[in-house]
């Protein structure tokens, strides 16, 4: 039986997921949650598949009301979460009773928060994903007063002593320091920048206001390039650090055009891409070089932690009679 959640304050919020994969050859970028880790954890914490639709809130406050019991989680940038008038914890499941409003204040120290709800949020999909794509003209932006359809078999659980269920599942929140450290590996064109590695590793860059979900523009020293030859258009992954002829470095985000013709000096690691998705204009960052082997090892370790968390959630939910689809 589908039911509805009411958006009381939308700010800048949209329904998204982990992105639209497999279409890059057809010129369609992956898009999806800018901070994939926080989005995946939010879903795992409510027993959903990692790629389930959830709400991405950008830089603003957000409030949602429910007339039925729901299980939610909030992850991402640090923000004050309140359930009616009581504080709620980020990075843990939260049980909302009928007639409750959950508020997520504007984040501090990062850019985006994720709100996941146990069950399935209704959102139209294109090629299997509900992720907004501004160029294809698809996606669901939320407005104040809008409703969000939900199908969920969640039934309220109760703590025998404290009345309010309190979870302690131990999801690991990332840190949001300023300046932020962005791990990179060498890009395919590093040989064209003889001083590039030293410069990138020692300088501090600032995120400029012209940054968006397509690319972050970074103000700071530009590495001198040996060649002035044009690079033939080629496929470029998310995280590529491009050196255009202008005065700013360009770090590609998930809405990037799939091809580009600027030299690529470095590539942000999978883990660093999530940190980049949380940077706001004015924030500072430093680059730190990693080997590809180290970057892969760190990604694998984090994926292992996510699987462990998913197993823990399923064990706890099974004991409470909450359905779990994190596998």
């Amino acid at each position, binding site marked *: 039986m589908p039911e509805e959640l009411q958006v009381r304050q939308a700010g800048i919020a949209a329904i998204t997921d982990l992105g639209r994969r497999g279409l890059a050859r057809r010129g369609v970028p992956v898009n999806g949650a800018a901070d994939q880790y926080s989005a995946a954890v939010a879903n795992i914490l409510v027993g959903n598949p990692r790629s389930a639709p959830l709400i991405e809130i950008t830089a603003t406050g957000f409030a949602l009301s429910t007339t039925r019991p729901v299980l939610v989680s909030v992850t991402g940038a640090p923000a004050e979460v309140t359930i009616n008038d009581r504080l709620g914890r980020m990075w843990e499941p939260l049980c909302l009773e009928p007639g409750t409003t959950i508020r997520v204040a504007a984040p501090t120290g990062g850019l985006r928060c994720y709100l996941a709800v146990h069950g399935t949020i209704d959102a139209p999909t294109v090629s299997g994903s509900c992720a907004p794509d501004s160029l*294809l003209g698809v996606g669901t932006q939320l407005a104040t007063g809008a409703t969000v359809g939900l199908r969920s078999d969640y039934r309220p659980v109760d703590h025998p002593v404290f009345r309010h269920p309190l979870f302690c599942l131990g999801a690991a929140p990332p840190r949001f320091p300023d300046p932020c450290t962005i791990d990179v590996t060498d890009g395919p064109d590093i040989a064209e920048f003889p001083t590039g590695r030293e410069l990138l590793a020692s300088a501090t860059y600032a995120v400029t206001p012209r940054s968006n979900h397509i690319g972050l523009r970074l103000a700071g020293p530009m590495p001198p390039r040996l060649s002035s030859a044009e690079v033939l258009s080629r496929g470029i992954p998310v995280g590529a650090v491009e050196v255009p002829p202008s005065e700013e470095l360009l770090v590609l985000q998930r809405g*990037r055009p799939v091809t580009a013709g600027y030299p690529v000096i470095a590539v942000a690691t999978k883990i660093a891409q999530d940190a980049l998705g949380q940077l706001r204009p004015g924030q500072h960052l430093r680059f730190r070089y990693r080997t590809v082997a180290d970057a892969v090892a760190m990604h694998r370790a984090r994926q292992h932690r996510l699987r462990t968390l998913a197993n823990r959630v399923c064990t706890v939910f099974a004991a409470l009679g909450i359905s779990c689809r994190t596998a």
Partner: protein
Amino acid sequence: MAPPTWQITDFGDSALLAKAVGSGPEHCWQAVQRLADALEPDDRVIDLVATYDSLLVEFDCDEVTHTELTEAVHRTIAAQPTTPAPLRSRAFRIPVVFGGSCGPDLPAVAEELGITEQDVVDALCSREFPVRFLGAPAGAPMLDGTPFAQPIGRCAQPRVAVEPGSVALSGHQAVIYPVRSPGGWRLIGRTPLKLVDIADEPYVPYQPGDRFRFVPIDADHWSDCAAQIVEVVDA
């Protein structure tokens, strides 16, 4: 001509770039497109981007190592036929209103080339353009081989919004913008046809290897084919 050889390099922790070298541009492009066809995304390969002389292979580094995937790509290359069949090529006819509000940069492009606007239009409409690959935004057909001696410069200031169907030039390349988007290429005309339909699968009916021919139409005939999807005229 000898088939290309391949240079495969790491592109971050989750991608490889396979570059075809040592053969002519046409051979390299065909080899790249064929390799992409043979690699189709699966559980390990997440996404592919095949352009002129290189193929980006994005993968899940939790599932497969760079070494394993590099070897798999080399095996796929080795399994390709030595005398491959030509790429499938279908012809598309693209009616275009040149100049005026549809192609505001046509006068400046003609002046830059030192020829008349009509000369530019006639030259562009006198030949077919191969679709090299589908690029941004939203599956834009990347065409090349414009019949002008000198490359065409980009706009000094990129436009914030280019209308869908706009035909644009840069260097020796041409493109049609499938959707409204920002753009820095020089606009010389616009087709009333629709290129992209997200309700359809695939979104665009053309693919790398197909051929586009521009046909000049009068602005009065815009409504004759407005919003119709582009169609194959010769398979």
